[in-house]
């Protein structure tokens, strides 16, 4: 029997596979397709304090082995989430992680304070890639200082562990990861999507109404893998890796470069049961490679 459990220190998971935010709705939409109990954890769609309209369509464009999205974090807001979603998730014991958004630092804190009393929430994932309305739309993820500030504030108000989700659209992700760690973040997750665009040569227009979007899917996996490796080398806190994971072997690669757990996102859009399939494939890999504990894979990259 392979031991798939995954200990993040602040949170113990049944297995290392976490359904990523933005590709799993609020969890409820996935009920027809899979047993939420099978997952390591799941991260629900990013929540601001208030409902959010999102970007105008078209919001999606394809790239070779990739998807560019510009959803604009459309969402129901914290109150509707507490009122209409949380009661229906109570029956699941799988750790629920809420992706927390904010247009200002204060909004992140307000969302966290509002969610703190909800016992079912196991941790917050801080989405520091949200444009900050007070700072010319720059998001905290783009600088170590702003990241430090928002994580520090979140830590001060939060009664639950904080996972900081890092953006790859920076010159030195390690310095930003270190800032999150220094501010008290219990873990980091990476990578968020890569800023991208697509053009229709027939109409000579951008394919996305928002012009820019975030690239995800197998196209980004090699870059995400390198980023996870670089960050995991330097951080003491656990790194949750992801970016284009479509199979158990993809997940194993992220574990080998130092991730303690993985997030599966875009794969769910193509196969709603992808997370469960990937868990089984990780188990198969462990069996065929005589790995007794999946946690032994983390950082197992052979370099000499």
């Amino acid at each position, binding site marked *: 029997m392979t031991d798939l459990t995954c200990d993040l220190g602040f949170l113990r998971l049944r297995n290392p596979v976490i359904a990523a935010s933005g590709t799993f709705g609020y969890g409820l*939409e996935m009920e*027809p397709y899979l047993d939420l109990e099978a997952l390591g954890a799941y991260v629900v769609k990013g929540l601001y304090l208030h409902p959010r309209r999102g970007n105008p*369509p078209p919001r*999606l464009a394809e790239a070779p082995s990739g998807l560019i999205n510009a*959803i604009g974090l459309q969402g129901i807001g914290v109150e509707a989430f507490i009122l209409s979603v949380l009661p229906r998730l109570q029956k699941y014991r799988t750790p629920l992680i809420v992706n927390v958004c904010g247009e200002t630092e204060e909004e992140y804190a307000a969302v966290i304070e509002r969610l703190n009393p909800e016992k079912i929430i196991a941790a917050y994932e801080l989405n520091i890639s949200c444009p900050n309305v007070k700072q010319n739309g720059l998001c905290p993820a783009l600088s170590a200082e702003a990241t430090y500030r928002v994580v520090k504030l979140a830590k001060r108000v939060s009664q639950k562990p904080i996972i900081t989700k890092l953006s790859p659209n920076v010159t030195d992700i390690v310095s930003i990861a270190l800032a999150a760690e220094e501010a008290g973040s219990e873990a980091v997750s990476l990578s968020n999507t890569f800023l991208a665009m697509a053009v229709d040569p027939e109409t000579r227009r951008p394919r996305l109404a928002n012009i820019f979007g975030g690239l995800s899917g197998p196209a980004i996996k090699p870059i995400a893998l390198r980023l996870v490796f670089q960050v995991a080398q330097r951080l003491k806190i656990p790194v949750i890796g992801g970016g284009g994971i479509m199979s158990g072997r993809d997940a194993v690669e992220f574990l080998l470069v130092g991730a303690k757990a993985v997030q599966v996102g875009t794969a769910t859009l*193509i196969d709603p049961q992808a997370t469960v399939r990937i868990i089984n494939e990780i188990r198969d890999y462990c069996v065929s490679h005589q790995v007794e504990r999946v946690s032994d894979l983390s950082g197992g990259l052979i370099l000499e």
Partner: protein
Amino acid sequence: MGLLEKPGQVVEHETWGDYHRLTVFAPAIASKARPGQFVMARVSSHYDPLLRRPFSLHDCDGEKVKIFFKVIGQGTALLAQKKPGEEVDLLGPLGNGFSLPAAPGAAASILVGGGRGIAPLRFLAQKLRKLEQKVIIFYGGKTRHDLPLAQELAAEGFELRLTTEDGSLGFKGLVTELLATELPKLKPGRLYVCGPEAMMHRIAEMSKAYPLPAEFSLEARMGCGFGVCYGCVWPIQRTSGVEFTRICQEGPVFSGEVIVWEKKS
């Protein structure tokens, strides 16, 4: 749990120029599907193109489903290469279907399909006929090559109004032009519409002016097809105001009264 179909065998592949129709053995979907619902099809067993493609259910006979499409890009081009005996991975049935009249009535249902927009209307026409509704199908395209199903629908006994922009088959002009002159004579009870956005928009205006209940099957590039990605939205009038609403989850069929056509921003 449901809504998932194991990859099903292609039983038949019919071709009319750029238009294709696949019949796929998919009993789990076929047994549950209602007109207006759709499936998400994998077009490649690799990850390029990455996303599934949405297709309206064109016909369901208990074990088999049909999808009807025109080759318009990479995804449909790949699907057009499927041969009988090969497999297609379908997810569905997804979304909400057309609303059906509660009781048999004298007023006809008019179905308006533009080009490949005929896809969901064939399944609907068959269902309406079973419900003893009078059905009249308006079927329009640029040329007669865009009306590949005209003969078959006529052979099945459906009352047809064909239009082509070049006059190569039926009324010469737009399907909306013929509809405008025919509506007062036909005095239908309701409209069901699927086709290009400009066509649907024009018919939505007509149905409001008349007034006449009308339902429209909307289309957008979809990420997932089951409501988690919020990629396929359209501005829809809801109780709380105009909201970007998921075509895959709250649609793809919407009443003409709530669809906002003019501006998408």
